């Protein structure tokens, strides 16, 4: 086999005549890419041929579906903070990426997708496997472009990486025609350092920080709600310093989970539809609400007309378009959270809010008695999702990265996972994409091989990308897969129970023998349906050096509480 080795410096400095497809691969190497996820096909074959040549430097992971490639790239990006890369052919290959791209867009995940396209003379002619992927992906990408000439490839890829990663991150797509892949160019790679007309990070104004500090210093009942912006800005230490100095009860959105350890005394839990009772209720009692790197999603705010109306709102965000989009702010602090929180820290007074914090603790106790205790320490016969998460916490000592799919198990996992370090919660927040977890866990484990990666998935979502077991098998990725099987599309069934008179329309699932399927892929597996076997099974799974499949048959009709019914006020959060 012919292979070539280039160091990064060489890639950058040499100018030589090469083909467009070789330029694609060399550009990726120059960006430090050593792993990518994809699926071949006619219009991207020249690039695959180059990948064959460079396989000692770039490891291409063949997923079993392009959606899997996109989600794997997301999982890779979310745990590492690096750009994830996905590759697909034109037409159906490209359209299969779309769900993953849309997911990455709404969750601000840096992903670069490269798609092959029919030759440029065929564009617009309904050629075989031609789709207008640039048109299709426009509303769900941060940026995209089509390259029709070999000489434009390096600059397009450089720009793609720069845009994907800078400022508020997001997915970009570069579509490259087949003739551009075959064409020749004088290759020289220059990293993109800026794009005229694009200001990734707005400057933080000292005046705005001072105004924010003044409100916080005077507040009697301040409350922080942080989101993923803290993780994306790598501002975990700054957040913690601010929280501790000013003694502010702090809650998180689902994508903000793990930025501050779960056990921190000022961490008061999750906000939103299935968030904790205290932070939801007290959102409507705080006097200053400090939103950091979060976008006031409707799943967080419930009815905007009754959301935190009594509070002065301070909004920290990198994206000016988020300011006043959903909630009107009294003070807006633009910029990167790492810098803005450091500036805020300097301007804050040391403080504590014991009585106010006690209100959160009291409501936690209420929630504990009516919900949490029953979830974590059940006395009824059927297994709960909560006790499985608790067991994972115990066996991994809170060091696992938990990758969740979408549904009840997701909410339970995010509520009960004991996060000790940042970037430990990888889930599809804004789009709520079933099928996310299995491929995302592959990407996450490959990016962080030293971390325990546990995918927690519902029986519905598991079957949406079940084919990626093949990728796990072929690549020998030691991810741990836990399917919480309630034989229902549980979350939808919960809504049907609560809001549609228990009319369970098409939510009951007759499932196959999952363990046998896993075995077919040579993945060791076990099914558990009794409480007495659960602990040992989780222990065995965590102890395994290889990938492991654990199916836990849980109570069929359990519900996730607390819950804010869709469109209701956060203070109308229900405990049952």
């Amino acid at each position: 086999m012919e292979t070539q080795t280039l160091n990064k410096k060489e890639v950058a400095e040499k100018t030589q005549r090469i083909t467009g497809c070789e330029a694609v691969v060399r550009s990726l190497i120059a960006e430090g890419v050593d792993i990518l996820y994809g699926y071949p096909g006619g219009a991207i074959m020249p690039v695959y041929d180059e990948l064959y040549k460079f396989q000692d430097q770039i490891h291409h992971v063949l997923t079993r579906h392009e959606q899997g490639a996109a989600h794997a790239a997301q999982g890779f990006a979310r745990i590492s903070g690096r750009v994830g890369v996905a590759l697909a052919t034109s037409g159906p290959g490209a359209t299969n990426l779309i769900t993953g791209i849309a997911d990455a867009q709404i969750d601000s995940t840096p992903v670069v997708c490269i798609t092959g396209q029919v030759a440029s003379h065929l564009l617009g002619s309904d050629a075989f496997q031609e789709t207008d992927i640039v048109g299709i992906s426009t509303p769900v990408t941060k940026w995209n472009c089509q390259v029709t000439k070999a000489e434009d490839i390096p600059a397009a890829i450089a720009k793609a990486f720069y845009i994907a990663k800078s400022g508020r991150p997001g997915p970009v797509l570069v579509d490259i025609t087949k003739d551009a892949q075959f064409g020749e160019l004088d290759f020289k790679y220059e990293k993109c350092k800026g794009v005229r007309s694009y200001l990734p990070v707005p400057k933080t104004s000292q005046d705005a920080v001072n105004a924010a500090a003044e409100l916080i210093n005077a507040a009697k009942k301040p409350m922080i709600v942080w989101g993923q912006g803290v993780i994306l800005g790598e501002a975990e230490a700054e957040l913690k310093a601010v929280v501790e100095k000013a003694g502010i009860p702090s809650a998180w959105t689902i994508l903000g989970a793990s930025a501050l350890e779960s056990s921190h005394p000022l961490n008061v839990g999750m906000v939103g539809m299935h968030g904790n009772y205290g932070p939801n209720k007290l959102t409507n009692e705080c006097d200053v609400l400090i939103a950091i790197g979060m976008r006031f999603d409707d799943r967080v705010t419930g009815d905007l007309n009754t959301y935190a109306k009594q509070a002065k709102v301070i909004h920290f965000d990198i994206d000016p378009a988020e300011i006043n989009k959903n909630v009107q702010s009294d003070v807006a602090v633009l910029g990167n959270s790492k810098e803005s929180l450091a500036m805020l820290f300097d301007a804050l007074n040391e403080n504590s809010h014991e009585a106010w914090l006690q209100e959160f603790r009291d409501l936690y106790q209420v929630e504990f008695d009516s919900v949490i205790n029953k979830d974590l320490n059940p006395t009824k016969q059927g297994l709960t999702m909560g006790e499985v998460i608790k067991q994972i916490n115990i066996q991994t000592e809170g060091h696992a990265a938990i990758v969740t799919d979408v549904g009840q198990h997701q909410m339970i996992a995010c509520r009960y996972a004991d996060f000790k370090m940042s970037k430990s919660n990888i889930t599809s927040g804004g789009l709520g994409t079933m099928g996310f977890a299995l491929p995302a866990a592959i990407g996450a484990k490959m990016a962080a091989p030293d971390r325990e990666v546990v995918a927690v998935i519902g029986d519905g979502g598991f079957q949406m990308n079940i084919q990626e077991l093949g990728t796990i098998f072929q690549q020998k990725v030691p991810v741990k897969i836990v399917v919480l099987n309630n034989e229902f599309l549980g979350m939808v069934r919960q809504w049907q129970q609560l809001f549609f008179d228990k009319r369970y329309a098409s939510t009951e699932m007759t499932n196959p023998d999952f363990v046998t399927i896993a075995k077919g892929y040579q993945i060791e597996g076990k099914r558990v349906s009794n409480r007495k076997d659960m602990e040992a099974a989780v222990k065995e799974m965590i102890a395994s050096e290889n990938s492991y499949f654990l199916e836990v048959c849980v109570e069929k009709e359990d519900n996730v509480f607390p819950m804010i019914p869709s469109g209701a006020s956060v203070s109308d959060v229900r405990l049952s």
Partner: protein
Amino acid sequence: MSEDIKTFTISVYTENNIGLLNRISAIFQRRHINIESLTTSQSEIDGVNRFVIVVNVTKTNAEKIVKQIEKQVETIKAYYHTDEETIFTESCMFKIKSELLFEEPQIQNIIKESNTRIVTVNKEFFVLEKSGRRNEIESLRRDLNVFGIMQFVRSGRIAVTKDEMKITELLSAFNNQ
């Protein structure tokens, strides 16, 4: 408390790149906002395009749309202005049978009184052109309609602001960042 819907002229300075029209119009489409008119052209700066988009929305919405547009990587700057803050015009053309020009003296009066320009005349038809406010164009159309119009076309609004737009300065700031 509901806000008044007003006419806003949204001006967008962008890089001259394929696909931007799609990106920008998608922002209106997603929010279900009808575009009353849209004009794109080169701007006063080489390589920089300008979109002039007219919509009827609330001020809050105009502000949100402008932020969403500015967020697009290749957008340099977007503004929104009320009618009072801009000088604006539209232009239109009428194609009319030539015989009417000679047989209907009333048409000649209309042309004269409305400051309409004759662009061309030949044996079959003549073409009129007029620039002005929407209502002036509409009234001219009503007047000519009586005699029969073979073809009519109206452009989108073009507008300049009464205030300065400091795009050149903005661009040099981008370049120096």
